[in-house]
């Protein structure tokens, strides 16, 4: 007896059926059978099925006499024909990944579950991209003792991503309804009612293939039929739950309807015409009326607005609102504020409350405008548009406007329109546009701040070609997009790029470099500067560079810049980090100055002098004690040792740094003990001009600089931002603004609803500016605490993961809570309490603060750069020289 039956249902799909069947026959589980269940196809299917049967005895074929019009009947046929104890269902246009059957078989045998459910992955055939369906539902591998334990799983009502115990299905007489599409919604409800325990696995068990025709938006009448069927399926599912004594879960099942089923039609609704929208409203409204308010209240504000508009029968406005559901999530055309709440549209109503989006309180540069193309014409390579701009939150008072499309920027002259908003006419000559871009419109205020937003075209617009470009409305919101067509020229440049990428491998570059440094002597008067791996013009290298410039030393300087970084001075040559020119410069420069480490594998040319400024001190473990060098592999440690051996001088800001960091880094050469060049600006303490304005800090609001360090196991994840900013905003946003400085290796996007309170500054070029304009620092374990101590301003420490960080995540060299120059808190409530009472809290830490300053910044006198330059560059001192060179060996 086979272990598992896979029922492959098919109808007039002879072309793809063999692919589906083969994906089953190629499973790692050999002991299985395939039942092809044919819903009376009229094409070549019988012959194809016969051929498959001949080729493999594990294939069987059953066929209906009359087409059923759905998936339910053929699935039931296949289920009745199944000979094995377990069954799976597959559609003939989809496929199973190789391990699907065996992995779920092993899981159901291990757990004794009624069925096992796995992750579905949508596979977009033209691009080959995959996208998992609600991955958060499948994240944990687990056994669920009945649906009551996790009613969110109503979102997973597929029958195709599951392996069922056949006796469970037969015992409960579970069958698919045959008179309805979305038969698996109803089946799913019955299945969840009947199952006492089921298992969930996190890996992909089903490839739901979406071919090109699936993705085009068809405005067929059939789709309206689908809406009816979906609503009917929802009704029947609710009835099923009630009949089986699960009436209390009806709201959870309805939540699924609003969150998933309704969205399937709301998303493309803006590309349908008004007649369709009206019919949609009339079909959905009766069921939505049955849905309890608490279900709708659980939804996101814009979904709530759409529900409200459906209930009110306002189809035309529904199309406007539905466009805001998806990227770029444009603002409403119109909004009103009433008694402190913000409402979608012209009149306040409870269902239209969008206050939670906090769109009305955004800083100007992040504020939202809605630009809709109302007319569009082409002329040669020229695109003529009339654009209507809506300013729902009245942020525009005085401005100049422009439209940007890739490298092209043209001025706009919007006029107030009697129909509301502003209307501008614009003509773009796209002949010079090469890559792809999303055109956007910007409004610049007299103070220089600009707000930009995407341009929306009619989402139903057919794409059209304009010279070498293709213009289309992207996504369900219809964001205008211009992209190159696949012309020979484009293909050629793509090939060129690919060849270059093949040739310019890091290995080849390293080889070329090693040859270069053998034959070329470095130039003594050429210095290569790099800060934070090229990520900015900042840190101690900047301070050293500026000092070198100030003294007019005969040194040609070149700065290394990472791809896409800006903010470097215009009078200095730049080389892109990792490029061929960068490698040339590394080989030629007689002086290297950097704060993190030039590419580790690159040996230093003979005769080059390397000044390592390092980029911080503090409590973290570092170098050989850091996790990346603690792995059970010798490679990285050897690489690091060789890289450190290149240093000719290391700046040590304090005795503490010399005690712990220098040996931990494995460095044994000369150490410069003059303080930290980058802290000179902090010692001088001149508040930088225009920074508050640039960051749009409202007058009178105090500034909290929040600078968490990264977590080694979760770089680029955003998880280092551990303070619940929403909670913090609710408590203190009337008094404070947060500048969020995430670590350079971290990625975190501040959600729009927090932008009124949080200013993202992860990529702000100079952290000293942020330190100087802030009123207090909030950090966890970042080295910024040591620099900040120079200012004497209050510090707070949010260390809710201290034990984890200290013991397993990173490791530390100092017991932070014992020496912290400010309160260590673990909850937002404590943090709020400290902020409300900051002066006295700060005063109570005066002794510890003084001790911390002695520990970290005793040598900061504001002349570190000068003394370092005097010593390292051997330059005539501009300030009285120390009595003797402080170049000395690390103890």
């Amino acid at each position: 007896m086979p272990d598992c039956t896979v029922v492959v249902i098919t109808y007039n799909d002879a072309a793809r059926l063999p692919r589906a069947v083969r994906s089953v026959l190629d499973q790692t589980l050999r002991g299985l059978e395939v039942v092809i269940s044919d819903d009376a196809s009229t094409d070549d299917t019988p012959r194809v099925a016969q051929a498959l049967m001949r080729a493999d005895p594990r294939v069987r074929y059953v066929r209906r006499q009359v087409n059923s019009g759905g998936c339910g009947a053929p699935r039931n046929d296949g289920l009745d024909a199944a000979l094995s104890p377990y069954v799976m269902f597959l559609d003939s246009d989809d496929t199973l990944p190789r391990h699907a059957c065996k992995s779920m078989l092993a899981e159901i045998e291990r757990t004794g579950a009624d069925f096992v459910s796995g992750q579905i992955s949508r596979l977009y055939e033209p691009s080959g991209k995959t996208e998992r369906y609600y991955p958060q539902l499948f994240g944990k591998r687990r056994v669920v003792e009945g649906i009551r334990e996790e009613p969110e799983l109503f979102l997973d009502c597929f029958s195709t991503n599951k392996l069922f115990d056949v006796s469970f299905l037969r015992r409960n007489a579970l069958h698919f309804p045959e008179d309805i599409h979305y038969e698996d919604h109803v089946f799913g409800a019955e299945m969840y009612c009947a199952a006492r325990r089921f298992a969930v696995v996190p890996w992909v068990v089903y490839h739901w293939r979406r071919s090109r025709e699936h993705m085009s938006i068809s405005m067929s009448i059939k789709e309206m039929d689908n809406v009816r069927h979906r609503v009917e399926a929802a009704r029947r599912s609710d009835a099923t739950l009630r009949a089986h004594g699960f009436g209390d879960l009806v709201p959870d099942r309805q939540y699924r309807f609003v969150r998933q089923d309704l969205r399937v039609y709301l998303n493309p609704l803006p590309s349908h015409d008004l007649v369709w929208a009206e019919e949609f409203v009339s079909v959905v409204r009766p069921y939505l009326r049955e849905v309890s308010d608490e279900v709708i209240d659980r939804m996101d504000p814009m979904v709530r607005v759409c529900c409200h508009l459906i209930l009110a029968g306002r189809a035309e406005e529904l199309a406007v609102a539905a466009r805001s559901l998806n990227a770029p999530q444009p603002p409403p055309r119109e909004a009103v504020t009433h008694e402190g709440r913000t409402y979608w549209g012209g009149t306040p109503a409870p269902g239209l409350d969008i206050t939670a989006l906090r769109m009305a309180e955004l800083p100007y540069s992040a504020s939202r405008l809605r630009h809709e193309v109302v007319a569009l014409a082409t002329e040669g390579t020229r695109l003529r548009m009339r654009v209507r701009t809506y300013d729902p939150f009245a942020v525009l008072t005085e401005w100049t406007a422009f439209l940007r499309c890739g490298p092209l920027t043209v001025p706009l002259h919007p006029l107030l329109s009697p129909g509301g908003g502003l209307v501008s006419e614009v003509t773009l000559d796209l002949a010079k546009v090469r890559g792809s871009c999303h055109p956007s419109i910007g409004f610049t205020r007299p103070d220089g701040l600009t707000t930009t937003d995407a341009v929306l075209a009619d989402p139903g617009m057919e794409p059209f070609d304009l010279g070498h470009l293709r213009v289309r409305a992207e996504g369900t919101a219809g964001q205008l997009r211009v992209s190159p067509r696949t012309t020979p020229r484009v293909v050629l440049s793509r090939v060129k790029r690919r060849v270059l990428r093949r040739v310019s491998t890091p290995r080849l570059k390293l080889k070329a470099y090693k040859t270069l440094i053998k034959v070329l002597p470095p130039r003594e008067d050429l210095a290569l500067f790099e800060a934070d791996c090229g990520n900015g013009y900042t840190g101690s290298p900047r301070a050293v560079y500026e000092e070198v410039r100030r003294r007019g030393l005969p040194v040609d300087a070149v700065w290394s810049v990472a791809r896409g970084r800006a903010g470097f001075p215009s009078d200095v040559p730049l080389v892109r980090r990792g490029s061929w020119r960068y490698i040339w410069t590394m080989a030629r420069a007689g002086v290297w100055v950097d704060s993190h480490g030039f590419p580790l594998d690159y040996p230093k040319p003979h005769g080059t002098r390397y000044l390592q400024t390092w980029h911080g001190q503090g409590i973290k473990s570092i170098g050989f004690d850091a996790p990346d060098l603690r792995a059970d592999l010798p490679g990285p440690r050897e690489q690091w040792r060789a890289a450190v051996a290149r240093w000719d001088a290391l700046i040590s800001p304090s005795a503490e740094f010399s005690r712990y960091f220098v040996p931990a880094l494995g460095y044994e050469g000369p150490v410069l003990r003059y303080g930290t060049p980058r802290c000179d600006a902090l010692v001088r303490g001149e508040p930088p001009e225009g920074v508050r304005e640039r960051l749009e800090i409202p007058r009178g609001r105090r500034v909290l600089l929040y600078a968490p360090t990264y977590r080694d196991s979760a770089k680029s994840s955003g998880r280092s931002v551990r303070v619940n900013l929403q909670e913090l905003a609710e408590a203190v946003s009337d008094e404070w603004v947060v500048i969020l400085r995430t670590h350079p290796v971290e990625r975190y996007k501040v959600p729009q609803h927090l932008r009124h309170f949080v200013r993202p500054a992860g990529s702000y070029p100079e952290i000293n500016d942020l330190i100087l304009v802030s009123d207090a620092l909030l950090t966890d374990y970042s080295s910024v605490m040591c620099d900040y101590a120079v200012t004497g301003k209050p510090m707070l420490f949010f260390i809710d993961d201290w034990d984890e960080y200290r013991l397993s995540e990173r490791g530390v060299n100092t017991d932070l809570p014992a020496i912290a120059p400010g309160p260590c808190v673990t909850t937002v409530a404590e943090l709020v309490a400290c902020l409300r009472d900051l002066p006295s809290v700060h005063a109570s830490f005066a002794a510890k603060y003084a001790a911390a300053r002695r520990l970290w910044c005793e040598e900061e006198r504001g002349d570190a750069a000068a003394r370092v330059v005097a010593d390292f560059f051997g330059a005539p001192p501009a300030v009285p020289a120390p009595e003797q060179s402080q170049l000395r060996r690390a103890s």
Partner: protein
Amino acid sequence: MSGTVVFACLDADTLGGIQQVTHTLAQGLAGRGHEVHVVGLRRAEDPFRYVARPRYLRHVISGSPRSSVFERMRAGRLLARIEPGFAVLTSPGVVTRLSGLLPARTRTIGQYHGSYQHARICSHLGSIRRHYCGLDQAVFLSEDDAWLFSEHALLPNVWSLPNPLQSWPAGQAELTATRVLGVGRLAGVKRFDRLVSAFAKASAPPWELHLIGDGPEEPRLRAWARQEGVADRVVFRGRVDAGAMEREYLGASIVALSSEHEGLPLVLMEAAAHGLPSVAFDVSGGVRSIGGLLAPPGDVPALAERLAALMESAGERRRQGAAARARAEAFRMEPVLDRWEELFAHMTR
């Protein structure tokens, strides 16, 4: 069922944990009637003979210790000739090098001898995520590790198999000596500094800590022992031959392990087989499966506390030692070979 089994290592004859396990298993499976081959992709610079009279065949692909351009070609030819029923690829490096070279009918097994926690901090997790789901089975050292890889690398094909103990000692430690044993290379990852600190916190004379093994950290560790005030009671014993380890286990009362990362540490398995109680950081599913008194990772005071509990009470040592020996039964050759054959059976379902 007896299919041909091929074990493939980067280099099969260097002195190391993976190689030790591979040769032990090869000999064991050959003893059960399987045709077994051990393939090294490169020649070992300093070959070590693990099995005196192997019942399996050995092959070396490349004559040089470095990687060569012909490596893939030669490996492909050899594997096509052997046509293995099962190919055991012993590390992520071997999996990437041999991918696509194995005959279609061969069932592939990818092993990983580290823990999930270790894979996560280096390139291994990415490599496993990309390549191991293309294999027939991905095999890890413990249930917990297999589980974590199934969740975080989305592997559908995980399985767990412990490494076997090479031999089963007849005698058991008497547990009366005042000696704590630490065994391993004196390398950063082993974090013997933490063990020294815990020992200093927990112990009083005449207890001694004997560190067996050598490595680059030795000078730092000696300095550390001085700083912790136990220089006179921490004995650096240097490297000890495998044959002489039996005596070391029998002459000790406690084994302690303070590594940052461990897969399934052989020292804990061997100690348990000798009836020795152990303390360790709870750093992996492998460590949990062999057990002992476990402290949260990196928590030196907690480790010291557990160490002290064993030092203070001979009764506790005996209780823990007996329990350890009972747990070690699962790692004996025969049950482990049974589990390998269960795996083969599962793979042929």
